[in-house]
């Protein structure tokens, strides 16, 4: 018994030591190189993040990280950002491979905040990893822009320094309901089938509530297990419910299989809207089954937001145009940018704008600049919720909807069909 007590005491003492050490490291975020008093000096701001160079998120995460690198190179080439006291700030990236692993993320963000003395943090790719990183950012008092992360609940935990660049899951599919209302006000019946998983379930719940609030009737609301390959029982059930529209899906594999089997079963619906899968170029491999399927995307290379549009909306325009971004990205990485890449770039853009506005690298000043962000960029509108209930949640950005349509050469092409101001083609409706 006595030995046990000694052991517990020793453990507690060690814990105390570790905690105080952590506390000691958690001092002021800025800064490294001393600024010359009176201005004219230079500073380097360290942007810390992790990317999944290995593991299952490798493709998306690498693109996101490429987008961020492009932003950094461009800012630095232009000579950086000028602060209020005349100091010029250039940026330096500090990043690690998180192996698509949550535990690694927490370990590495702690290292970024303490050992590497990062001034600002950018999230890893995916909601799960970003959620893990957000705890650390908040704990060490660093501002973090999350990108590639759509889940809502990260922003409902009382964090004050975490800002979301993506449209949250709760608004992923709501645009399809608005689109339907415009295309066919007579369509009333919606079937929602989604993968049983956090993100897809969140989207499905939100679109169900939204559809019902718009007077639509949800005739089927059902989840399916992740990894489902046989959708025949569900499709038979949808057929029985006779909806005008099918909404739902989850990720690429199940979404593309569902689309394929809907077509094979000759299901008679006017519109099919699925998560995640349709914006992927690989979706076109489904051929006939891809035709007419719509899907939400955070951004598409064709979308054309302009400075004029910003003026009309009474918003500030910031950063490059869509085509400038696309050609710069293509020149550097030799591929067309996906929305993941654009998301990486825009995370940098958000920080840059806030630092310019604050004229400082101090966390509090940059935070208040971020709180008042309201701008239009090539990525779309950006604005954050400032209510403490959901601080940092993205409220300005909207999804664009793509649809696979038959091109003039008979091949399938991806068109932007919603919102109408960014559209590249009229929506194909009803699909059949």
């Amino acid at each position, binding site marked *: 018994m006595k030995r046990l007590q000694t052991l517990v005491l020793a453990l507690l003492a060690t814990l105390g030591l570790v905690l105080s050490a952590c506390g000691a490291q958690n001092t002021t975020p800025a800064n490294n190189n001393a600024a010359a008093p009176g201005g004219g000096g230079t500073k380097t701001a360290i942007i810390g993040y992790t990317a999944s160079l290995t593991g299952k998120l490798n493709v998306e995460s690498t693109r996101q990280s490429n987008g961020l690198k492009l932003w950094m190179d461009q800012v630095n080439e232009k000579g950086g950002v000028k602060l209020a006291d005349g100091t010029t700030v250039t940026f330096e990236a500090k990043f690690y491979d998180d192996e698509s692993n949550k535990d690694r993320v927490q370990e590495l963000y702690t290292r970024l905040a303490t050992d590497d003395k990062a001034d600002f943090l950018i999230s890893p790719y995916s909601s799960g990893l970003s959620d893990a990183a957000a705890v650390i950012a908040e704990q060490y008092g660093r501002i973090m822009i999350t990108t590639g992360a759509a889940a809502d609940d990260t922003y409902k935990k009382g964090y004050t320094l975490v800002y979301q660049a993506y449209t949250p899951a709760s608004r992923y599919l709501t645009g399809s309901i608005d689109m339907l209302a415009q295309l066919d006000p007579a369509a009333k019946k919606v079937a929602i089938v989604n993968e*049983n998983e956090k993100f897809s379930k969140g989207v499905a719940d939100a679109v169900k509530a939204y559809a019902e609030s718009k007077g639509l009737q949800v005739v089927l609301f*059902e*989840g*399916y*297990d992740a*990894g489902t*390959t*046989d959708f*025949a*029982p*569900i499709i*038979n*059930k949808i*057929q*029985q419910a006779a909806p005008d529209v099918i909404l739902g899906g989850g990720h*690429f*594999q199940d979404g*593309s*299989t569902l689309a394929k089997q809907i077509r*094979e*079963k*000759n299901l008679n619906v006017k519109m099919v809207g699925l998560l995640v899968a349709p914006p992927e170029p690989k979706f076109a*491999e489904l051929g006939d089954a891809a035709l007419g399927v719509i899907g939400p995307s955070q951004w598409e290379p064709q979308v054309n937001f302009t400075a004029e549009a910003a003026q009309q909306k009474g918003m500030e325009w910031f950063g490059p145009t869509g085509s400038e971004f696309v050609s710069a990205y293509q020149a550097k990485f030799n591929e067309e940018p996906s929305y993941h890449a654009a998301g990486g770039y825009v995370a940098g853009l958000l920080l840059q704008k806030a630092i310019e506005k604050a004229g400082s690298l101090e966390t509090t000043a940059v935070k208040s600049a971020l709180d008042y962000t309201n701008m239009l960029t090539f990525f779309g509108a950006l604005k954050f919720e400032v209510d403490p209930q959901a601080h940092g949640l993205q409220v300005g950005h909207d999804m664009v909807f793509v649809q696979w349509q038959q091109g003039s050469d008979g091949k399938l092409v991806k068109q932007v069909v919603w919102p109408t101001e960014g559209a590249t083609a009229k929506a194909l409706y009803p699909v059949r």
Partner: protein
Amino acid sequence: MISALSASLIDGLMIGLVYGIAAMGLTLIWGVMRVINLAHGAIIALGMFGIYLLFTNLGLNPYLGLLVVAVAGLLGGMLLYQLTIRRVINAPYLSTLLATFAINMIIIGLGTAAFSTSPRNVDFTLGSTNLGEITILNTRLVAALAALGITIGLYLFLFRTRPGKYVRAVANNRTAAELMGIPSSRILALSFGIGVMLAAVAGALIATFFPFTILSGDPYQLKSFVIGVLGGLGNPLGALVGGLILGVLEGIVPNFMPNTWVPVLEFMLFVLILLVRPSGLFGAKR
């Protein structure tokens, strides 16, 4: 409602036949040599990749590819038996379980290295047939008919040919069979080969209509266990009927409750059969 039910019933019966032959592979190996083949799922996945590679790289028609997969499965299974199972066949169950589990891990490890775990698709279609409001996918129909044909073939083999009779004799009583001059070692290899072949063929048929990865065999292995227990382990006909029951359950149940309840019901049935009739619906009473 009637049309929805009949559509579900037909879909269920068609997929059930394919489940049936997958389970037959498992149950045959158990029946003849009392080995639970934990590499069953991995072999199903290999069958899927067999068809995929033959179709995508060589442009071979999937049904011709099926024959290649069957022959490769038979020979590969016999080889596998000679290399591994033969050495542990008289050891306690745990040894054979671990041996087949090791094979499973080797296949999955190599498969992941070679193909990664991103989903593959055999981009092949035969169109569909309309019966009133019911649409039947032709690839599924062909798979069901093929499964039926394979079952009949297996029965003819087991009951009408000499090697088939040897297989049954060894299953019945290996010592007695050996005393009668039956080369039991070769018959065991043959049985294992047939079991592997059935698994590979089931995988190949599934690949003609569902996407898959190297890990896709696992759910079918689980289903094979349920079916095997349902129909009576060691009884091929029982496996077919068990497969049909499971398929119909999967088709019909979602009409009355959320589809995520299907596995719950399936495994409740599994426990129930084990409690009430552990030898299965068609198993011999002991």
